[in-house]
């Protein structure tokens, strides 16, 4: 028995002393291999009487298990040490800048249009569009602006060359012709918004020859001025994403609506900084009114049966107000520094339920 105990001690200390996986394997082979010393002792069991064999066998198995466990433990130890040694060599400079990743931006005009559409979609509006080169009828006459009407002079119209018949196409001065095309092609009830490019022959600090508008049109048999107020107040409160924006409706004049109104929102100009919300100032943001009976009639609708409202607002203007963009002209310059600063990341699709903007 003593020699078994000493063999055990010998193997355990050899395992503990092994410095490499190879040395440890030698110890394992010497003890547990086919010709190993413990294996040799196991082989001798066959010559013993049953009583002795049982006792000797149990003792041998216990030593064998103990040695195997010790060898495994040492093996893990050695592997850990080797891994740690390797990791100690594998040091990267994680402060290095990452590889360049590129993402473009969405233009504030597109983003603002998407925001506006999201709000009106919630109120049951759909999106309509129309051509940017228009004829006189759709841009003016059908909108109750006859040829000599002074309101035409307010429009600074761009004209295309004279046709053989003397008429001239125009670049639409507003998105209102889409109202006409919609009423000509659709039976009420109608509820549309029409965003798009518009053109006026004007260029200075606050005007660009091209800009964007969004038009709204509701036609049915019961919509009245109170609904117009309700609709636009709701829009303003949602769009600007600040609490309590005061809204004011002022009587005004547009040939295609009657009664007509301009809508102002409250603002403060304290310290030279413009803030939307309660304050002592007002900012005009859109024009609107009840669709003029002449317009309905021009579109083939019976003014005694149908009524409704229309509104129109400048996309750039409300984008400038909401996001504090100072200069209209910069919208069309495609300056990447400006676009990166005022643009929107592509995945920020505005929704009413998920939030219009971050």
């Amino acid at each position: 028995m003593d020699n078994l105990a000493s063999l055990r001690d010998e193997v355990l200390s050899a395992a503990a002393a092994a410095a490499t996986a190879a040395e440890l394997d030698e110890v394992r082979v010497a003890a547990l291999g086919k010709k190993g010393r413990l294996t040799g002792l196991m082989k001798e069991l066959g010559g013993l009487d049953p009583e002795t064999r049982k006792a000797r066998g149990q003792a041998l198995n216990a030593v064998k298990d103990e040695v195997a466990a010790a060898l495994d433990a040492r093996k893990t130890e050695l592997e850990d040490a080797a891994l740690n040694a390797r990791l100690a060599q594998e040091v990267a400079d994680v402060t290095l800048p990452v590889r360049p990743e590129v993402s473009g931006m969405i233009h504030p005009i597109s983003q603002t249009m998407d925001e506006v559409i999201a709000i009106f979609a919630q109120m049951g509006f759909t999106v309509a569009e129309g051509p940017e080169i228009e004829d006189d009828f759709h841009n003016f006459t059908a909108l109750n602006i006859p040829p000599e009407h002074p309101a035409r002079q307010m429009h600074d119209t761009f004209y295309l060359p004279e046709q053989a018949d003397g008429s001239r196409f125009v670049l639409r001065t507003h998105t209102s012709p889409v109202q006409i095309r919609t009423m000509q092609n659709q039976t009420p009830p109608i509820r549309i918004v029409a965003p798009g490019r518009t053109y006026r022959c004007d260029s200075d600090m606050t005007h660009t020859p091209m800009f964007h508008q969004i038009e709204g049109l509701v036609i049915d048999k019961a919509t009245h001025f109170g609904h117009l107020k309700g609709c636009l107040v709701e829009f303003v409160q949602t769009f600007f994403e600040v609490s309590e924006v005061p809204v004011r409706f002022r009587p005004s004049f547009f040939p295609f609506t009657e009664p007509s109104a301009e809508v102002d929102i409250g603002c403060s100009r304290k310290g030279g900084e413009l803030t939307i919300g309660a304050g002592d100032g007002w900012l005009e943001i859109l024009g609107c009114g009840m669709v003029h009976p002449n317009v309905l009639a021009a579109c083939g609708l019976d003014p005694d049966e149908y009524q409704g409202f229309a509104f129109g607002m400048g996309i750039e203007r409300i984008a400038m107000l909401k996001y504090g963009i100072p200069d209209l002209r910069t919208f069309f310059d495609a300056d990447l520094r400006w676009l990166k600063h005022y643009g929107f990341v592509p995945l920020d699709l505005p929704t009413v339920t998920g939030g219009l903007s971050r």
Partner: protein
Amino acid sequence: MKFTLSWLKEYLDTEAPLATLDAALTALGLEVEGIEDPAAALAGFIVADVVECADHPDSDHLHVLAVNTGTETVQVVCGAPNAHAGMKGILARPGVTIPIDGTVLKKGKIRGIESQGMMCSFRELCLGDDHAGIVELDTDAPAGTPVAEVLSLDPVIDLSITPNRADCLGVRGIARDLAAKGLGRFKDEPVAKVAGTFDSPVGVTIDLPAGQEKACPLFVGRLIRGVKNGPSPKWVQDRLSAVGLRPISALVDITNLVSLSRARPLHVFDANKLSGDVVVRFAKDGETMTALDGRDHALRSDLLTICDAAGPQSIAGVMGGAPTGCTEDTVDVFLESALFDTVAVAHAGRTLQIDSDARYRFERGVDPASVFDGAELATALILEFCGGTASHLVVAGAEPAPRAPISFRPERVKTLGGMNLPAAEMAEILARLGFAAAVESECLMVTPPSWRGDVAAEHDLVEEILRVAGYDAVPAVPMPRPPMPKVALTDAQRRRGWVRRTLAERGLTEAVTFSFMDSRHAVLFGWSDPMLKVDNPISSELDVMRPSVLPNLIAAAGRNAARGIADAALFEIGPQFFGPNPGEQCLVAAGVRAGKTGPRHWGAPPRAADALDAKADALAALAAAGMATGGVQVRRDAPTWYHPGQSGTLCLGRTVVAAFGALHPGVVKKLGVKGRLVGFEVFLDSLPAIKKKASKTRPLLKVSPYPAVDRDFAFVVDETVEAERLIRAVTGADKALVQEVSVFDVFTGDSVGAGKKSMALSVTLQAMDRTLKDEEIEATAQKIVAAVAQATGGALRA
């Protein structure tokens, strides 16, 4: 429309403060552009008594004053020669802003003597040019009274009058609106008639062709003999100056005064320069006239004029002629008060490009009932300011018949205007505005006053009532709406959004550029139709509707390069125009990439953007638009603005849906942009419609449980053989087994021979129902080699 507060009060009896008037005007739809209130600048200035006036010990012209402010006596050093004890003056204390230069007054010492304020001159207060000395007030007001309360200051109000409110182009009309809103009593005194003492030697006739009589229904004239035309009285000059008009002479100032007070334009001729009677007629082609603006105008038979025996002497309602205008020497004046048609005046004004106050009023509509009043009022003023004797009126034509009443259902205020208002209040509002109403069965028959030509129908009356009662009083009603909103966008609109956000996600930044461009550049992009030129462009660089979106993006990339961003990557989704008729435009998603694929980086060196980057953008856009890009064919027929060797089009069947490639260096250079650019155009309107599916269910996923095998092939082919042919040949060799083909190497060189190239492909083979055996793989490889040989003449590289 500018006027002073005192001018308004001539027609409106009111005690309302300026701020209340301001709010009421806005609420009435008479938009306040601005109010210049001189009193606002005088905050802090007070009436002060000079108690003592001693000489300054160290100066021969300064005084040291003891000034009573009403609460204390302070010491003020003053240099004014007129300073004396016992006078009342205007004192500014330290902290007050001096209007003339905007400085804030500080306490100071002048030659050793402390000064606790400043006695002011009118000039320092911006109230005139007088700076000979300090102001000596002629007032009983006690010391300490704010100066603004003592001086008679007249605020100037500037309104922006909408084109429908011709009646408010006169102060009297504005007063009427304010009175209707409850801001005071409208002073509606009738105009006194001036009795003439002789018959006018100048006669008047209206000679208009049949059917065009309405161009001038009524002309009233009067000769005033023996006037002395000189400067008008100071109050008239002050009034006109205050609203920005230069006083000229009494006769001219009178016409301006009546025009501004009552929106009633007039004209005065020097009667002695007229030859014979006056005729209102259309001009004859070839007639000319020098107008008061000094310009010679060639007249035409569609322009309405006032003529004498010598020819046109005035363009009706627009501007008088210089030869017959009144001067300092005018002795006999012929006064014109007439009614001209809005369209006739607008037409003449626009044709001759003359802007005048008269045209402005006539083209918006002058009160037809104001003709006689205008003539009488002006006569009275001429007699008062210039003396002379007046003739009887000469009248041609007649006042148009009053308009028919409008039938008005009061409930429309509720059903159209959304406002609940008792009928009595409606009637009250209409009456105050000058409307006459009579009850007739269910409705009111409402006759608009002569000055409200804009009110023509029931909805106009609804607006009048809403406007005066106040839009604020209309309750806001939420829009009734469907319980669940429907999809607001059409398929084409949704597709546009997907393309937009996909391109941005790929590193292109969205730009919005003008729809027009320089015609000299547009020709490089296929423009030729002269009907697409803008007749009145904002500048010659923006004179044609763009035939392509690319040129504006190329120019934008050039501008960015000039600002130091060489690697611009931009896209735009917008229209291009192929014809001048409405609808002859199509929507294009276009993009450009300039310079390199990114900045220099140690781990990811950039390379020049090339045609395949543009192709990738175009394909990504097509995929985002819902196209299966597997079916896209590449053709080599890109438009001429692309590099002929490095470009292509993408086609679905026979439809070209995109073009891409390196942009033609010659074209880029002509746009004034340096460097190499690539670009693409995806024609969104040419894409086939998205197929409407009956259900959103997707086909069952079928993946093979058996292993896939990758085999590499290197083919040597003629250099002209394009990759797509090779790939199609390989794919077609065994459609069941070939799952994927990719090109992983392309090279030319001596080792493959002149005119040849090597293309290495990796082919993935996999069966749905079995593990492929070696023999089967080998047989498929043979089929692939044979298919390539047949399609391209290529062979496996030895």
